[in-house]
């Protein structure tokens, strides 16, 4: 329906994925085994879920750097509330309320105070992580309480051999795809990303919609956080200090969702996630050091951004309107 310009990059990334995948399969023993492929997908499932949330914001011509904080702290709150003896519903509600609050704060600052999203979400992310680490939790690592074991399956175990975390990613992808392509609000996101002024004059309530974008990305981050903490049996809030957020941007940009907004969709996130998963998995099998992997990922991100600016050139108007 909306495809178009991002299509070219989709094909390029798809081909790149096919080449790298075939190359690894032929060259690396142990790469093309069922076990390794599930490992590959499990390692990127959480990243992929985050990418879906980032995609919504980027399509609406924003960016959300607070996603890792929104992954760690609200899910930590859920675990802590459950550990304190409250029920499943109450603890989930507490986490969701926290995530929505982060989204509203981001959205309000971007839409109403008109602070560029890059700086808003950076500051909100640091603030939220700080609140979590210094005030809310007793230790940096919040353990998974036994009282939440009834939902622990979202991160553990497998159905017919497919890990649940991968299924969670797939389910989130379907929901986000339906939201973006089939609902009126999804169309609003594309309209705002394509031409904010035109969307405004057409009569959309643009600013509430921007707030909604950030609420959605925070809630998706919470979901990713629950999957992650269920699979590792705890939520390590120090995760915020890692470079994860760049991986999320890498997934989105590499997949072909232009940073100039209004382009791309869930398919692009899937492609980007698979490509990153394959590269990281291959490098791990090759025993490339963590530092070297970061270097390679950095180069790939740079190449993807370059490709993005060649394929989706920013004209003067978007350069003035877009703040990223």
């Amino acid at each position, binding site marked *: 329906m909306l495809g178009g310009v991002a299509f070219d990059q989709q094909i390029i990334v798809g081909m790149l994925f096919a080449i790298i995948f075939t190359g690894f399969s032929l060259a690396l023993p142990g790469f093309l085994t069922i076990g390794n492929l599930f490992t590959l997908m499990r390692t990127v499932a959480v990243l992929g879920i985050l990418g879906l949330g980032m995609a919504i914001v980027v399509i609406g011509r924003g960016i959300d750097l607070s996603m890792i904080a929104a992954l760690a702290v609200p899910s930590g709150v859920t675990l802590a509330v459950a550990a304190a003896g409250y029920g499943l519903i109450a603890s989930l509600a507490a986490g969701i309320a926290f995530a929505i609050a982060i989204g509203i704060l981001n959205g309000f600052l971007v839409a109403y105070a008109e602070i560029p999203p890059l700086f808003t979400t950076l500051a909100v992310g640091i603030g939220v992580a700080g609140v979590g680490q210094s005030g809310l939790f007793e230790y940096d690592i919040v353990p998974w309480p036994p009282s939440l074991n009834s939902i622990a399956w979202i991160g553990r175990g497998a159905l017919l051999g497919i890990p649940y975390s991968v299924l969670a990613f797939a389910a989130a992808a379907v929901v986000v795809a339906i939201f973006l392509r089939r*609902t009126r609000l999804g169309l609003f996101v594309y309209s705002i990303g394509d*031409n904010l002024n035109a969307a405004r004059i*057409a009569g959309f309530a643009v600013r509430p919609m921007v707030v909604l974008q950030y609420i959605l990305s925070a809630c998706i981050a919470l979901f990713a956080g629950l999957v992650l903490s269920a699979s590792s049996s705890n939520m390590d809030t120090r995760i915020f200090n890692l470079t994860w957020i760049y991986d999320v941007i890498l997934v989105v940009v590499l997949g072909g969702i232009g940073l100039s907004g209004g382009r791309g969709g869930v398919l692009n996130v899937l492609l980007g996630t698979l490509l990153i998963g394959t590269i990281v998995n291959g490098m791990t099998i090759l025993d490339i050091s963590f530092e070297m992997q970061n270097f390679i990922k950095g180069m790939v991100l740079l190449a993807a951004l370059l490709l993005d600016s060649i394929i989706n050139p920013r004209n003067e108007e978007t350069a003035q309107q877009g703040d990223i």
Partner: protein
Amino acid sequence: MNPILELRGLTKIYARSAAVEDIDFTLLPGEVHALLGENGAGKSTLTKMIAGVVSPTRGTILFDGKEIHLRTPSEAVSAGIAMVFQETSLVPSMTVAQNLFLGNEKFFNRVHGTNISAQQFMQSLSFDVDPTAHVANLGAAKKQMVEIARAMLLKARIIVFDEPTATLTPEEKRHFFELVVTLKARGVSVIFISHALEEALQISDRITVLRDGKLVVTDATSNFDRAKIVQAMVGRTLSHELYGTKKTRVRPAGRRILRVSNLRVGNVVKNNSLSIFAGQITGIFGLVGSGRTETFKVVSGVIKRDYTNGGEVFLNGKAVRYRVPAPAVRDGIAYITEDRKVEGFFETMSIKLNVYVGRLAKAGLHKFWIRNREMDTLGDKWIKSLQVRAVTRAARMIELSGGNQQKAVIAKSLVQDPELIIFDEPTRGVDVGAIAEIHQIINRLADEGKAVVVISSYLPEVMLLSDRLLVARQGKVVEEFSPIDATEEKLMYAAVH
């Protein structure tokens, strides 16, 4: 005397239509040459070619008898041609001295030394500007002095002014004219674009009038008077072929839909009052800076009026104040923008999706899902009704011609079933064939009983379309005409000061 600048057959073609065609023009040393014409006559394009901002499609530029090819403005500046734009190109946060030497700083800059040489230079031009003052704190006239000083410092022999007096007070204008005399005395040639005919008559040596991209007449100022200039500006032949004959019948005014009273927006709209009635087309004519667009952007909620003493807007007798366009759209106001690329359409989307976005923008919250069948039906309906020529309804907006884009933008608004429709320059950048069709659409809307507003700086267009003609000047409507007894000359008289 040999001309310092000579243009031979200069032509600029944008997207197959000529913005400027076969201009032969000479500029003598120490001459003040006024360049007059309506909006869109080609004045800006012509001067931009002289200043190296755009490069000509055909023709030659001779500077001091030698042919030159200017590729960038900086090449023009080093050749000795400087342009002073309407919006000044100074850096507001820097001092006057810093601005003067901008781009020509020495490797190590001594603040004191720069200030002294700036001071000396300003005095040599007898300009009274403090070199240590920040440009942001200067008035419009002083900024202009700094611009001129910079041009002089770069040893400009030709200075092009684009509407230099538009933002000046009468006092500052007088000062500007003195500056022009100073420049003239120093042997600098001046090209001067203006809408103010009296000024041109007052300070220029020769006048050139452009119309529809062609040079109509060049003659010594003493051979012109106001009436003769206006006639040269508007007496077109092409328009009569395209627009047919004069209107003989007008639609009567229906119910009063909109009343604007004493509207104020910054210093652009000043105490503007007007009414719009159902079942007829109200044409708003005015030159750039007359506040016509801003007035109707306030009506449709795109911009806000002043908080205090901002005036009032009544829709169907009820006072309204829109802070965003959404409630205005809900109340049945559609604003169709003059700049469709920047605020009109969604370029990555198809025609049908653009129309559907318009529908969804007005639909209530209960509408949650997108329905493809509804989108296709709507797309087909409006493509047919507005005669959009595209290969398929799924064609993307960016692939369409200007006329078809404009029709799609109109469809996007009409699908919202508005009661008051504001067209801002509805045929700007539209191919000739589509102009007549868009006019047909506008007429049809008025026949259906809608209140239609057409803002245009193109005289034949407002004359042909309007049932009622309002002329705006300097922020308010100053005169009303019936199209039956209005002439292009009368309208132009009312619109220029």
